[in-house]
């Protein structure tokens, strides 16, 4: 675990696997990297009507306060989620979007935005349902918060055996897309291609 305390929110439609994506990230940290992770999810009226949202806090120390108000990282898979949650991001935070479903323009200063056509990549694998894991792979490459190997183990640990191969492929698709994007941005930007660390909240 490299981060002191990072707050992450993942949001989208019900059925997109928002909670599973959050659980994979939490597991990777807590089960495979010796860190701490606390996941909470929105229940009740705000979780009805098709929207779904989960929060994960990662830390190298025990986590006390379990809720997230201003995340360091926001992953959105629907326009509704983007519109609602992007303004709450911490200034300088990271916004990760499903590029073809979401358009964002209202977010705090200094936020870096990264998009991935996760639905299309998932469809290339023949199963749109794994878009959440494509997003998770992309998240891994962009944030560099967790080792790719921990995330892979967490994916394998979170899906039924028959679905493992497909989900791991989905993870690689997203991870690869993210790594390439970072290289390109590195080449065009600061030139070193290092992953972006969301450390501001420490």
């Amino acid at each position, binding site marked *: 675990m490299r981060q002191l305390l990072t707050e992450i929110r993942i949001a989208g439609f019900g059925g997109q696997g928002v909670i599973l994506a959050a659980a994979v990230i939490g597991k990777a940290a807590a089960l495979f990297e010796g860190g701490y*992770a606390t*996941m909470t999810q929105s*229940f009740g009226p705000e979780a009805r009507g098709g929207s779904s949202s989960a929060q994960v806090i990662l830390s190298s120390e025990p986590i006390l306060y379990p809720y997230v108000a201003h995340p360091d990282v926001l992953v959105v898979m629907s326009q509704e989620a983007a519109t609602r949650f992007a303004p709450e991001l911490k200034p300088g935070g990271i916004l990760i979007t499903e590029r073809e479903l979401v358009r964002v323009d209202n977010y705090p200063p200094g936020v870096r935005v990264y998009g991935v056509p996760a639905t299309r990549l998932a469809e290339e694998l023949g199963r749109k349902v794994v878009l959440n894991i494509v997003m998770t792979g992309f998240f891994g490459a962009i944030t560099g918060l967790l080792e790719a190997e921990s995330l892979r183990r967490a994916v394998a640990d979170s899906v039924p055996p028959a679905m493992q191969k497909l989900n791991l492929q989905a993870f690689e698709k997203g991870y690869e897309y993210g790594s390439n994007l970072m290289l390109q941005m590195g080449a065009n930007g600061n030139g070193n291609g290092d992953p972006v660390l969301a450390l501001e909240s420490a």
Partner: protein
Amino acid sequence: MHADPKGVLTGVHFLDGDHACCEGTLAAGARFSAGYPITPSTEVVERFASRIPTVGGIFIQMEDELAASIAIQGAVWGGAKAFTVTSGPGFSLMMEHLGYAAMTETPCVFVNVQRGGPSTGLPTLPAQADMMQARWGSHGDYGIIALCPNSPQECFDLTVTAFNLAEEFRVPVMMMLDECVGHMTEKVVIPEAERIQVTPRRYTKRQPADFRLYEPLADQVPDMVRAGEGYRFHVTGLTHDDRGYPSMNVETQDRHVRRLQDKLKPLANGRALSETENLEDAEVVVVSYGITSRVAQRALQLARQQGIRAGKFRLISAWPFPEARIAELAGRVKAFVVPELNLGQMVHEVARAAAGKAKVMPVTHAGGGVHPPETILNAIVEAVR
């Protein structure tokens, strides 16, 4: 005795408090659960319903909470370890059978995942407003045990403890979760079965002819039997004598009801479960439990950073209330700060135990979320002023 490996899901898991609680019931040896769906507690029995057919046991969804809370007691007298699960409105319906379990000394576990009330209130949001109901909700005088986990790991660990205490003291034990702890997902380590201590039922070794169902032993708790073994015993919710026969007079009532409370004394004193920190030099002590204890911990860190000598007293067993410990602290601290997700419940117990020797400051919250740590911090600052 150690746990039956059949029910123990040894390993490292990423579970929410409700699911971890379910694993705790299985590890403790519970093979019977009766419930009625209610948010935010249903996940406990949903998992039980999915796990129990491969472990070997029964989950039955009853027609209401009255049925669920008495069906488990039938199962206990049939020889099972059993529990029910509910939240707010269902907990209210279970009160009569909480009393029945206390009166008949039926060891069983009630899991209450607290949500905002009164009435239907806030079905999906946390509160800690059933603490007094857990203690006093059924009519008459009796004692119960209530445990307050503050993490999924503790939801597992303390559920095993709850079953063990239920057997040892023959009382209903309440697992007082709150929505936040119940729905929070974290790492949960489930040890190997050999490393989980399970208290067996205190079955009598006596023959039917010289066994009396309610004859207390040295620890004030009577031994038990189960149906079908030839004891031909009688259990009643009426005031009863040592034989278990109705005996409705002042003497029997006095002896019986006093014993129902007195047998729990060890837990009010030496054996109370708590977590303390920095009490040696404390001038203010934050008394908290459940999810609020985590928020309070954050406030305590901030207070110490400001140089305030603040200590922590976390109630793990909230009932019986650890009166002696609080009374002792009251003699040497300036104040107690008591944050809870209610408008003031356990704070009354703290005040009672402090008996005017220290200031007692409630930090109330009507439920639906948790305190911002700063609110608790402000109370700490205020307390030492």
